[in-house]
């Protein structure tokens, strides 16, 4: 992966930039020492590392506005960063760019139960929002696996999902308002406590824009009353194909479970070896189905789901008897990544989404690829929505294995697109999938997206080198070739 060449004039001006930042934020909040900068050298995608020019940690919106204005005027690049848990390199620093850390924006500003929302600063962690409102029986629904660490600002930037998004939606469906700062320093508010923002849906556009359009400085999230009960079913099958069929039949029966996750043989074995929660290890697929709501509904659906599973010759169907058991069912799934991590020096986590009925074909092809690249792969899926997380196992110390793993991953993602799916379901494009964008989008599609980027950030100083495989200058993108001419033969019935 090649990042844009650092701008030598900016590198030469480093001291001048540090001086300017010291005037905007407290001196302690400008990090310049190599040792301290190393903390920021990568995010959750640890294969890529780069020291930033400097790190700036603003404390007020006005400071962010001033930092951006300065960068705008002096053509200095900016990489916004929350907790740095991105799995796609969204917060990977630039040698000639300021990493703008939002960790000091860590306050829950207001909880408004009457209007079922909370106003929070971007550096508040996902889990902290639920913690802040749980006393009153509420929670914030999107729950990415990294929820203990990842911040809401990052969640908005990446449009994060989680186990519950099948029923409760992604980040984009669970926020009502944003405050953002544009690169020219303008502070804008989108939405608020009301539903649907006025004018263009810039709230929807900002969500999942991977830090390329503006810096998020405040988020108004929806909070929901907690369901009264939740029960999990653990169902095992001979094959992932049978598991997939079970998922389809559950949905066809009109049931949208709170969560529905599947693991293949290798993933089950790894998880069980790691946490020992009683997963059957000699099966082809394990399906976890969580049903939530009033007890009457949950009981009714347990019956329905059990009989669907039994009709498909499930090897076993277990229903959690209590909260502890429900959590133990999930413990293995939640520990799947570290469990794989114990079996291999390194692993590479993919994130494609496919139409669910293509699962058998995709798994079979992945098997062939595994042989071709001579690398093992384990699979965990968000089964309800077709989001796959193949974990490719490799050893970075063996020359060539990382490249092989990356090529294997790229082949998997091409396959996802080929069957009607997409490159990334929830981890984002970042630097990781940047060069694969052409597999899914034409040049026209990508240029249109970049034109939108230009409407927000004409100098392209926000997070450049991410998402788009080729950087075009905005002026060049704005050009249009017009075929001069009158509407020929408008009277012809062809229209």
């Amino acid at each position: 992966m090649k990042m844009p060449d650092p701008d030598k004039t900016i590198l030469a001006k480093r001291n001048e930039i540090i001086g300017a930042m010291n005037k905007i934020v407290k001196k302690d909040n400008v990090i310049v020492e190599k040792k301290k900068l190393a903390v920021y050298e990568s995010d959750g995608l640890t294969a890529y590392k780069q020291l930033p020019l400097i790190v700036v940690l603003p404390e007020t919106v006005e400071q962010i506005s001033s930092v951006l204005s300065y960068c705008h005027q002096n053509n200095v690049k900016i990489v916004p960063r929350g907790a740095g848990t991105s799995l796609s390199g969204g917060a990977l620093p630039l040698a000639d760019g300021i990493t703008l850390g939002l960790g000091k924006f860590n306050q829950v500003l207001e909880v408004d139960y009457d209007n079922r929302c909370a106003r929070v600063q971007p550096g508040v962690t996902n889990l902290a929002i639920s913690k802040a409102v749980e006393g009153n029986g509420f929670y914030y629904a999107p729950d990415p696996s990294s929820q203990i660490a990842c911040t809401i600002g990052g969640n908005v930037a990446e449009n994060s999902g989680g186990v519950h998004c099948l029923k409760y939606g992604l980040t984009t469906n669970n926020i009502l308002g944003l405050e953002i700062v544009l690169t020219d320093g303008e502070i804008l508010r989108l939405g608020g406590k009301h539903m649907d923002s006025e004018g263009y849906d810039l709230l929807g556009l900002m969500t999942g824009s991977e830090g390329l359009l503006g810096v998020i400085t405040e988020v108004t999230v929806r909070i929901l009353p907690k369901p009264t009960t939740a029960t999990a079913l653990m169902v095992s099958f001979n094959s992932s194909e049978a598991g997939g069929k079970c998922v389809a039949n559950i949905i066809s029966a009109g049931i949208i479970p709170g969560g529905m996750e599947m693991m293949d043989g290798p993933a089950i074995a790894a998880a069980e070896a790691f946490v020992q929660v009683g997963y059957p290890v000699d099966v082809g697929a394990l399906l976890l189905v969580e049903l939530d709501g009033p007890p009457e509904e949950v009981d009714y659906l347990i019956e329905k789901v059990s009989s669907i599973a039994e009709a498909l010759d499930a090897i076993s169907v277990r229903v959690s008897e209590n909260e502890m058991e429900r959590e133990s069912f999930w413990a293995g799934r939640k520990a799947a990544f570290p469990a794989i991590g114990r079996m291999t020096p390194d692993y590479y986590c993919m994130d494609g989404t496919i139409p669910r009925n293509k699962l058998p074909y995709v798994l079979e092809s992945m098997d062939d690829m595994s042989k071709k690249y001579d690398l093992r792969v384990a699979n965990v899926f968000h089964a309800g929505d077709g989001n796959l997380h193949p974990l490719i196992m490799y050893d970075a110390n063996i020359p060539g294995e990382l490249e092989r793993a990356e090529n294997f991953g790229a082949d998997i993602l091409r396959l996802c697109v080929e069957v009607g799916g997409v490159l990334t379901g929830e981890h984002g494009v970042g630097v990781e999938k940047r060069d694969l964008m052409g597999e899914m989008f034409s040049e026209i599609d990508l240029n249109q997206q970049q034109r939108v980027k230009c409407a927000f950030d004409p100098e392209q100083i926000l997070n450049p080198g991410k998402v788009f495989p080729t950087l075009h200058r905005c002026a060049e993108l704005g050009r249009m070739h017009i075929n001069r001419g009158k509407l020929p033969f408008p009277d012809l019935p062809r229209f």
Partner: protein
Amino acid sequence: MTKVLKPENPNQVSEIIEWSLGDELPLDIAGTNTKRNLGRPILGKYGDADNRVIGHTLELSQLNGILLYEPEELVLTAEAGTPISDIEAAIAVNRQQLAFEPMNLERLYGTEGGTLGGVISCNLSGPRRFKSGAARDHILGIKGVSGRGELFKSGGRVVKNVTGYDLSKLMTGSYGTLAALTEITIKVLPSPEDTRTLILIGLDDELAQQAMTAAINSSHEVSGAVHLPLTLAIQSSVANISSSQTAITGLRLEGFGPSVDARIEALRINLKKYGDLEELDREDSVVFWSEVRDVRPFQKENRVLWRMSVTPSLSPLIVKNIRSEYEGEAFYDWGGGLIWYSMNQSSEDCGAQKVRSTIQNNGGGHATLIRADDISRSQVEVFQPQPKALAALSSRVKKSFDPKRIMNPDRMYLGV
């Protein structure tokens, strides 16, 4: 002379837009023309912001057909000009629905037969909005032709997708000012097995608001919360509503039979303190909520009509405040988050100044002038005016799709 052009495929849409670019003639873009009276008028003597005359009308009604429907994948793709009723009928066969409950806004203009493209372009949602989201929450992907004449796509056919910017959402609610949509992919969901409604009798606006908040904030998964004053309640075709001869507050519960049974009993206990309760059965509930969805009480009249999206808990205060200057009737949907306000007597600005300043001073939100004559709609901002920096950004976004401003110019904002 203005022609109505009805392309039969996306390439023809692209051709028409390219020709219009050559002539720099703005296009008036429509599906089946049922919501012509929504937004600033762009046709006729008022011209557009640059004093250009409208070139031609681009009508997408021939792009009509469901291209893909996979019930077990919860996905449907249709051409933009497909009637929404065709889509709802096709998925009802598999006991599925559009969970955002698209309203038939055109009925407020005395027309029928809106299209999927129209629903998406206006981001139309129904009473389930506060629970299940708006149209924009259910769109998965689009194809369309930009004001550059280029056929482009965004999104896909899967629910979980963060590949590239979410231009599908940007198209939703853009009133055809960015692109002419040709193909739309949306999420479909199972229809509820049962639907019932608890009715609170005779509450005033403030108490009704408190009851709606209490109901939605309970764990009983209320999927509709509406308050109708007496004058509107008596117009209902549901005898159990109109015969009560009082204001009514309706709370809808949907889902599996045993679940609805349990929740309705639990909610009844929660709400007892607010007043007398009655219950609508499934049949009455379906009719009642379709009346709410389509704003039936305000269909057969021509008063100036405002639609306000506000901080839910503040809606009675907002209505009281507006009423102090402009007499009228209000009904509250979305648990108070949506106010429909029909004005008895209007003023030159249709009350815009009063409506918008009241919202501004009470938690924020926005107001749309849904119904007023052509002259009023060309003089009063139909959509909420934006602060300067936001308006400038909207204008740049418009330009990024439509640099010559030929796609429905001025329909949303003058100059956009």
